[in-house]
Every structure is written in structure tokens, then in C-alpha cells.
């Protein structure tokens, strides 16, 4: 059971039960669909991006505990942060999910650290990274548009 307890940590169960930023935004300028057809996870993420910053964020949809908690933790971590910061965070988390990170700093990660147990469950990496990939995709587009201008 030790593995399972690492995956389903208190933080995860809490964010699954009471997901943060779990609402449709009234006022948004980006909308992303994140779906994993194999397990039926399906979220819509709303973003209000202004001045290179994620001014507001919200998500709704259905999915497993891992994907929901991960989305909730993600939204909590990137709200009011810059695009740059969020993209870097994606890169960091991506390495953690796939077990390729060689230095995980618990203090620095804060509650995101709860997601590190996922790397022991290869079949669940997709769940944890679903919303992150979706977010990163849209941020990269914005980024590219900005830098190629």
C-alpha cells in the first residue's frame, strides 16, 4: 500500500474532492480542451491572459482523481504568474511526472510536490500531465507569436 499512499496523498485527495479554480470564467480570452480519450478524462480550461501574465484561470470537466487534482494544483500555481514562469513550471513538472527529474526540491514545489508520486505509475503519467500539456500548448503559441513579431 505504500506506493498507493504516495500516489493518493492527502493533498491529492483534497484537491480531487475540492478542486480549486473549478469554474468557468466569465471573462476569458483563451479556452483549451484537454482530453484523454483512453480513460475519458475531459477538461476545459479558461484563461485570461494580459500583459504576458495569467490574470485569471478556471477549469471544468470530469476525470480521475489524479487529473483533477493535478489540474487544480496547476491552476493554483500559475494564476497571477507570467507566461514564462508557467512554461518553466511545465517543464519542471514534466520531468517530475516522467521520473526524469534528478533534483526534486520539496520546499520549492510546495503542494505541487504531492504530484511526484505519479512517476511510479507510468499508466497514470498521462492523467497527471493532461492539463499541463494543454496549458503549455496554448502558452507556447502565444509565446511564439510574441517572439516572432
Amino acid at each position, binding site marked *: *500500500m505504500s*506506493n*498507493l*499512499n504516495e*500516489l*493518493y496523498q492527502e493533498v491529492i*485527495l483534497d484537491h480531487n474532492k475540492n478542486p480549486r479554480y473549478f469554474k468557468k470564467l466569465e471573462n476569458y480570452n483563451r479556452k483549451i480542451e484537454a482530453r484523454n480519450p*483512453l*480513460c*475519458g*478524462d475531459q477538461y476545459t480550461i479558461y484563461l485570461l491572459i494580459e500583459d504576458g501574465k495569467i490574470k485569471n484561470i478556471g477549469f471544468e470537466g*470530469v*476525470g*480521475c*482523481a*489524479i487529473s*483533477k487534482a493535478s489540474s487544480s494544483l496547476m491552476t493554483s500555481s500559475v494564476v497571477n504568474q507570467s507566461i514564462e514562469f508557467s512554461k518553466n513550471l511545465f517543464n519542471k513538472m514534466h520531468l517530475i511526472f516522467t521520473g526524469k527529474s534528478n533534483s526534486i526540491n520539496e520546499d520549492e514545489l510546495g503542494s505541487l510536490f504531492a504530484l511526484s508520486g505519479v512517476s511510479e*505509475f507510468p*499508466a*497514470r503519467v498521462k*492523467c497527471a500531465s493532461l492539463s499541463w500539456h494543454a496549458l503549455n500548448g496554448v502558452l507556447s503559441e502565444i509565446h511564439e507569436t510574441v517572439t516572432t513579431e
Partner: protein
Amino acid sequence: MHQFIQNSKSENQIFDVKKIRQDFPILNTKVHGKPLVYLDNAATSQKPKVVIDAIQKYYESQNSNVHRGVHFLSDSATNSYEEARDKIKNFINAKSSKEVIYVRGTTEAINLVAHTFVKPKLNEGDNVIVSLMEHHANIVPWQIVCDEKKAKIKIIPINEFGELKVEEVNNLIDEKTKFISLVHISNSLGTINPIKKVIELAHKNNIPILIDGAQSVCHSKIDVQDLGCDFFVFSGHKICAPTGIGILYGKEKLLEAMPPYQGGGDMILQVTFEKTIYNDLPYKFEAGTPNIAGAIGLGVAVEYLQNLGYENINTQESKLLNYATEKFSKLENVRIIGTSKNKASIVSFVMADIHAHDVGTILDQEGVAVRAGHHCTQPVMDYFKIAGTARASFSFYNTLEEVDILEDAVKKGIKIFLG
């Protein structure tokens, strides 16, 4: 000692599960340090050693292309390939081996019928009837051809037990109904449909009908002549046979009149650029080098099932179904989805509001393999207003002890999530 005597007794009597399990090498696998409890049989069955050995033997002593050679190996491969067809013909009691077409699986078989039999008959405004509990393989091909022909799909509804509302079939049928395609046993609910009744109804209205037997051939003796259906399709991998092989049964007269599906070698008699003459049945529908080893393996698999005997299979599977149903009915926070009176050994369930995917992971840690999700039957999930279920599907090689392990694992999951 006492144990031993009991075992050897039941061995002589009917069906010794412990002994049967030895036929399946994979059942000795350890998962996360625990014995594998394989309850994902509706997704694919495990393979007995005789089938695995047949594949090996084929590649080590017979391998050759079929039909086109005069040499020893080619003759040997062709004979085994065609003998397998004869075995399958007998297995489903088809009238002739010409009615037994090798395909990749159920999905390809349904696509073949949709494109070569139904599509040419469809006109704008026509309809094809399926049920709400179809696998996507029996929905999407009809959507594709109906879209192309501006025809419609009509749906036989189900009730809260997951039973087909057979009484609705007559209301759905009209003069524009060109085909009915119905699943025999639902892969997500376990419901056994009264297909004989629907086949009769269809034929009373002169409508041809296909039965999707993907989930039924492993549980019950199929007699296509007795059923009277026009097409019957199934996959080898769900009945102890290799992957990549399946069967389209069709009545000879219908198959004769159908155009070929794919073009290529073996399905033609003569080719010039001006004119091509197609080959006879069953070859007309078997273009290109087939899955020879797969076909031979399928022949061995159906023999294996016949030797076990469907009576024995049913006895064991009923025991498992009843035992599991009883246990699960008593569990708080667990709800069984699909409670048809007539049911195969499939138990789909939801646990409180724990997502099926999480249930799957929790059970996996205990060595228990179940499927989690919509099981390619999204309309069923939509009907029950759930995202998915966890599904334990039992085979004759499963034991009551395995049901106990499943139950314990489910309880652990509830504990983790609900404290």
C-alpha cells in the same frame, strides 16, 4: 491430504479449475509482487499453451505462403490454414466453409458488411437499427455509411437494468429499415440479448441482421443455422486465440452477391488491366497474405473450448458471477451497473464517486486486472450518467478466491478515498 483427495475427485467429476489454470502460462505472473488476478477477459482472453505452441510449431515447421505454392511447406501451411477454417465452420455450425471468412476481428467484419452489403442498398432517408448498448465497433461503421448515404441510425433503447427493450424493435422498424445490427452480449453490462427474438422480428420484416458475437462466443455455444442470422462476427483474441484474426460468418447467398471489400492477391481468378475476375468464396473476401498463424491458432483455440465443453464453462462462470454479484451487492458505496436477469460473467461497477481510472490503479496494486473506463460503449455510460465503470469480467479459469481478492482490493480503495 484431504485437500488433495478433494481435488482429484473434482478432477474426475467435472471441471478442475486449478488444473485448467495450468494450461495458461501467463496465470503464473506476479504483479507488484502479488499473484496476477486477471479479470479483464472481456477485453481479451488469455491463451492456453496449446495455442501458443501451435503458433511456434507453425513458424518452426510449416511457415510458407498459402494457396499459391506446390512445394511441401506451402502445401502443409495451406492444409492447416484450411483445416482451421473447417474446424471453425463446425464450431459455429455453418453450412459450408465458404461461409467462414477470415478477417482481423469483429471490427473489420462489421466494416466489411457495412461497406459491401449495406451501403449499396442504402438510399437517402433509409435507416439502420442498432441498440443503445453497442460497442463503438457496431456504431461508427454505420455512422460512416449512413452519413455517406444520408441515411439514419435508429436505436433500440435499454431499461435501467441494462436490458434491451425488445418490445420497441417493432416500433422502430419501418419500410425504410434496411439492416439491423445487434450485439449478442454487451461488453460493458454483461446483458445477454434475446437475439433469436430480434432475428425473427427482422426476418418477418425481410430485414437482414448481423449479430456481434465478440462477447458471446467465449460464453456460449453458437449455432448460426439455429440462430438464422444473416451475419455473425467475432474476434479470435477474445476466445483464447491469437490477436489479429477473427471471423465473418455470412449466408452463402448473401456473400456470393456482395462485391469484394479489398482488392489484391488470392481474391482474384484472373487479372488483366481491362478486366478482373474475382475468386470464389471465401477467397473473394481474403485479399492479400492472411494472418496464417493466427488462423491456425484460432482453429486450435476453438478445439480447446470444445474439449472443455460449454456446459463446464457455463457452470464455472455462473458460480463466479453469482458469487461476485452477491458480494458486491452487500458492499456499501459500490453500485453494479447492468443487472439484467440474463447475464454473462461480467460485473461493471462504480464506487462512490471514485473515478473508474483510480479504481483500476488501486486494484492493479493488488495484482487485480480490471478494465476501467467507458469500454468503448459511451452511449451506455451516457445513459447511466456516469463517466465510466470498473469492469471485472470472469472466465472459466478464474476462481472464487480471486473474487475474494477483488473484494478486498475494492474495500481498500474505498478506505483510501473515503477514509
